[in-house]
């Protein structure tokens, strides 16, 4: 995880320095704010990875001498098929069409979104993955 942490923190540092130079030199706020936000997007997950990389033993994928057997065991749980992403996609589609064709379309659109979210969560609970 150390490489991941360094990668993200390095990007955050770069955007921080560039953003500061840009903002001081140009005095233009929009670009300064956007570069500042980019810096945070590097620092926030980067700090998280750095925190855990110092408290975890190297994972098999971080170990250059690991063999396939090193990772034996449960990798994760994966849904084989699910109708809920399609339902959520259609709900989002209808909701966006409401922005164009009329506010009434929000009723079926948001209903589909809510149904899909509830269905997806229930499916996760039944299937044992979260």
């Amino acid at each position, binding site marked *: 995880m150390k490489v991941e942490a360094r990668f993200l923190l390095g*990007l955050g540092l770069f955007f921080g320095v560039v953003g500061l130079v840009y903002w001081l030199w140009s005095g233009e706020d929009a670009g300064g704010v956007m570069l500042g936000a980019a810096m945070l997007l590097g620092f926030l997950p980067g700090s998280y990875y750095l925190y855990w990389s110092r408290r975890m033993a190297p994972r098999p994928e*971080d170990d*250059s001498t690991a063999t*396939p057997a090193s990772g034996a065991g449960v990798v994760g*749980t*994966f*849904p*084989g098929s699910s109708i809920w992403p399609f339902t959520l996609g259609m709900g989002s589609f209808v909701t966006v069409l409401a922005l164009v064709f009329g506010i009434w379309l929000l009723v079926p659109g948001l209903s589909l979104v809510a149904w899909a979210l509830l269905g997806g969560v229930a499916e996760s609970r039944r299937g044992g993955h979260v």
Partner: protein
Amino acid sequence: MVDVLERPLTRAEPPPEAHGPTGLLKWLTTTDHKVIGLSYTVTAVIMMVIGGAFAEIIRAQLASPNGTLVSLAQFNELFTMHGSVMIYLFAGPFAFGALANIIVPIQIGAPDMAFPRLNALSYWLYLTGSITMLSGFFTAGGAASFGWVGYAPLSNSLNTPGAGADLWIGGLLLTGFSAIFTGVNLVATIFYLRAPGMTMFRMPIFTWNLLVTAILILLAFPVLTAGLIMLYADRHFGTHIFSVAGGGVPVLWQHIFWFWGHPEVYILALPFFGMVTEIIAVFSRKPVFGYRGMIFATISIAALSLGVWAHHMFTTGVVLLPFFSMMSLLIAVPTGIKIFNWIGTMWRGEVWFSAAMLMALGFLVTFLVGGLTGVYLASPPLDFFTHDTYFVVAHFHSVVMALVMAAMAGLYYWGPKFTGYLLNETIGKVQFWFLFVGTQVFTLPLYLVGLRGMPRRIAVYPHDPQWQFLNDLSSVGAVLIGISTLVFVANLVYSWKKYPAGDNPWDAQTLEWFTTSPPPHHNFYRLPPIRSERPTWDYNHPEHRSVPHGPSDRGSA
């Protein structure tokens, strides 16, 4: 419904039983990254054909000075939707949704993407976003007509009323969220689902490039989404964020749009750089030259790309010219390193000029032309002279046509992996020559006509023999490119299930070529030991085992 997956060991295991729905229901409910990636591929290629058809109409209109094929209003819709379809609906989704979805998990030994249902949602948002944007053509006022950049105040409700513009915004919102979700998924997959031994500096370059692309997506797309919401609010809720009349700032839209828009160029390009890197190494029978240098060049390009947005705004007169010029010129350095390394990979290799390799070489030449003219445009005095001319159109199309060649290279190279069948090589080479020659005949005259002062985005132009000749030549190039697309479709039909590929038809190097073609459910029956960035090559050619990377790897190979 749910598979609890255990890591495959080195011994062969029997194939798992097919499970889940079949037919149309399978497509609607699938969470398998390969099926989703194939859906992305088919949809993106359809979008390419639609966007290409718009381009052919545009070139037909411009083949004569006072073309009457389409009206002026229709021409505005056509060039707007040509750019929008090609950038938002073809190049981006093909780059990070199609081949990335299929190949990245397999390249790192993962059973699927980290969030399979989110992955499926990404596809449905992309498909519905595409339908939303294109449906503008079926509204009374026609499709969006303010250019693919949607500049304010041209895009406000006074200057561009009608549903077409709103459908453009809505379509972009949906595809934008699709991209963000894909970015999250790619980062999580690459960080958490790599096979044992697949350290970060053993990942294939394609996967590295997709990781960097995903980070760029997460940095850039939310900005565009926020901007679109502001634009919609200006159009319908009476806000004045981008209008001078209410105290707003029109040029703020350009800042927001290009803070997304320039990284977007690299969001499009980096995956294709990765594809080409893999293909050149495989068909030169060599490892990637300067593996770590390629990775750091990719990261440098991505980092710099976020600091160059206002080079698209030099002519506004309100941006810091030296800063943006310097940052833009700096990007040429890591890009040059990449080109050097691609040549270095081929150097003294046993180069096999397959259709995929020819496409990759076509990319290299065409991208070099587009990249070098980009260096000119990073210089404000030259940009002032050429900004609103066809020179910029030519530069941009050299770059994107290079990416189209890289996309074709990727399809010829990886298509056999996910379909199980090869495409016909001879027809592929015919397609390459139409595409390569057509691209140069299409773009090079546009540079010249731009330098002679022809503005872009015009449907008619004055009678000038030089302008007309160059436009005619460019239109001929567009026809050749169109023929190359027809040749590709003909190849798909001709080769349909004719040439079984086998697991590793190219004697390739990376992990996806270790599994079957097409890969089974959850991708692998077994995994090889991973001791370099070329595990399949190491396994198949123990006599040529790669030189290990990094101090911790030494002695372990």
